[in-house]
């Protein structure tokens, strides 16, 4: 399978006053199209920083980040926004829906920043996505009227609306109970089976088991990189 994401000698330093914190110490990773990856590691291992860099929310201190064939590592702020808007989908631990918007409006949000004219066609598309995640009877509800699992499903629908190359999850089940977590993971697996590339951060082993590939980070380096084909293909 072709590589969709490639990082080469990725280094990320934070500067706190006079102190330099070396978070990522030269990572080399390749992610293939259609893969489902779980990033794991103790806190401070750099997994969140890596996800931020992969999500084009942060720029690496040095090294290259190829998204497709393009090195996005040294892009400007506007270009990065465009990359996020066109190629990436986000799912957050705390859902991050806008409380003043309805379900459909929340799903529609990424399209707003693509400069697309929002009309009946785009709305229909959002409604379809809401139906896909099982919220066809909640279209005009606001996030606070929904349960955590339902909110996360809205977030998944939102992450799909721009038809992204890559979906990034930041502990997508972190705030959910076991039963709901399973529902969400099943949904992500279905998405992955339909061809979406997913990279998610988690610190729960049973969640990581849903992924095809598990990468463990420690102190800014890759500790292990394993495939758990047994369940992912099951």
């Amino acid at each position: 399978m072709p590589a969709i994401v490639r990082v080469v000698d990725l280094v990320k330093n934070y500067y706190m006053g006079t102190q330099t914190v070396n978070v990522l110490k030269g990572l080399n990773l390749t992610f293939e199209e259609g893969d489902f990856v779980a990033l794991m590691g103790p806190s401070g291992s750099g997994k969140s920083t890596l996800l931020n860099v992969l999500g084009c929310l942060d720029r690496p201190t040095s090294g290259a980040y190829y998204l497709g064939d393009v090195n996005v590592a040294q892009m400007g702020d506007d270009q990065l926004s465009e990359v996020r808007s066109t190629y990436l989908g986000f799912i957050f631990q705390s859902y991050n829906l806008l409380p003043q918007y309805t379900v459909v409006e929340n799903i529609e949000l990424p399209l707003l920043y693509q400069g697309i004219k929002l009309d009946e066609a785009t709305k229909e598309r959002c409604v379809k996505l809401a139906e896909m995640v099982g919220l066809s009877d909640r279209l005009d509800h606001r996030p606070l009227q929904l349960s955590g699992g339902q909110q996360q499903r809205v977030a998944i629908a939102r992450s799909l609306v721009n038809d992204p190359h890559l979906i990034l999850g930041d502990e997508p089940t972190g705030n959910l109970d076991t039963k709901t977590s399973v529902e969400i993971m099943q949904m992500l697996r279905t998405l992955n089976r339909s061809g979406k590339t997913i990279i998610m951060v988690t610190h729960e082993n049973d969640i990581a088991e849903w992924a095809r590939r598990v990468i463990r980070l420690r102190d800014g380096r890759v500790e292990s990189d394993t495939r758990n084909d047994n369940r992912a293909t099951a």
Partner: protein
Amino acid sequence: MNSISETPSQTNVLLIALVGLFVVVLVLIGVAQLRRNGIGAKLQRSIDLAVKSLWLHKLRSVLSVLGIIIGTSSVIALMAFGEGSMQDALDDIRRQGATNIIVRSVKPSDDSATAQRSYVTTYGLVKRDIDRIETIGDSILRIVPLRVFPTEARFLERLVNARVIGTTPEYADVHKFELSSGRFLTDLDERDRKNVCVLGSEAADKLFPFEDPVGRSVLMRTFDFTVVGVIRDRMPTGGTGGSQAAEEYNRDIYVPLNTTVARFGEVISVRTAGSRVNEKVQYNQVTITVSDIDKVRPVGDSIKAILEQEHGYKKDWVVTIPLDKLEEAERAKTRFTSLLVLIASISLVVGGIGIMNIMLATVTERTREIGIRRALGAKQKDITLQFLVEAVVQTTIGGLCGVVLGLVMVYTVPYVWSLFATTPLPAKIHVPAIFLSLFVSIGVGVLFGWYPARRAARLDPIEALRHD
């Protein structure tokens, strides 16, 4: 003339409506034009968004634009009242006539200059002065002398303390008044020293509350005067300038100048606080009308020179040039207007600071929302636009509310004022002030919304997402 001093006139309302309509059409065309291009959709979406989020915090939005509302409305109201009273003063001077020169007899403050002691004080303008003024030449259109006698006028048991003014028929041209019935004095009256009189509206009302005064006779001193005309109600002249007393024309009674000399003689008796003072004044006032506004000053100077020669050290005359006062009043109006604009800009700046304060609080409160939007692909300029539009929408709505409130004040305050005060509060809507204050309040939105909007846009998306 009257309408200016009481309520804003109809034409003003029409003008505002027209200009308002024009602006609305312009905005609609602008929006349509923008919508055809790509930016339009984005801008419209931003406006929708702004209205939505302002609606979410109704009370806060209202409070934050209160400064703008108060600023705009007070500018409009203050300008209207300022314009109104200034207009009043200007009209007053115009009524006196910009091409007129008014020479008055004044009692000299110090008799030692004349070194004369008698029971009859003699002072003021005499026939010889008028003859000499006439020699100035063609630039003088007419010379209207007048004598004033404070006298009781009676009809049957009714009495009025009137001011009898002896003057020539041309007086009517100088003061541009209208008659409600009958005619003014004529040359024939003057020549034949007829016992006729023309009543001011108030004098007529008091003496003849029920009947038509024309044709009746009024008793003044020991003579009967036949009423030949009544003058329509006139605006009194305010006491502009130190030398000129306020004139209440409506209680005046006009008689031919020659008749006054023949019937009442040259001595004017004035009753002051129980004692009687006899004064000998030939003419109390002479109004000289000049053909051209440019000739007012040179003729005025000539008149002064003549009077100085004739009267020597006796300062018993004073020359008033309404044109001078007109120009002075116009200068005062300009100063006044710029002062108001200054006050306006201060209050709008204060309002703008209020907006900025709230916008900064909003940005802090909505940091997470900003982070979410950024993560989903919003560029810095999208965020800037969003918050800027929000600020501008606020100040624009505030400005519009202010305009409405200001207009309401302009129409209602003079009425309420009239219930408590005796003097009217004139108001005249100042149309440029409306648009100026509206544009300034929109400008305030841009100016004071810019910094919070930029601050929102520059937030680090990761930090913003972590914020709670």
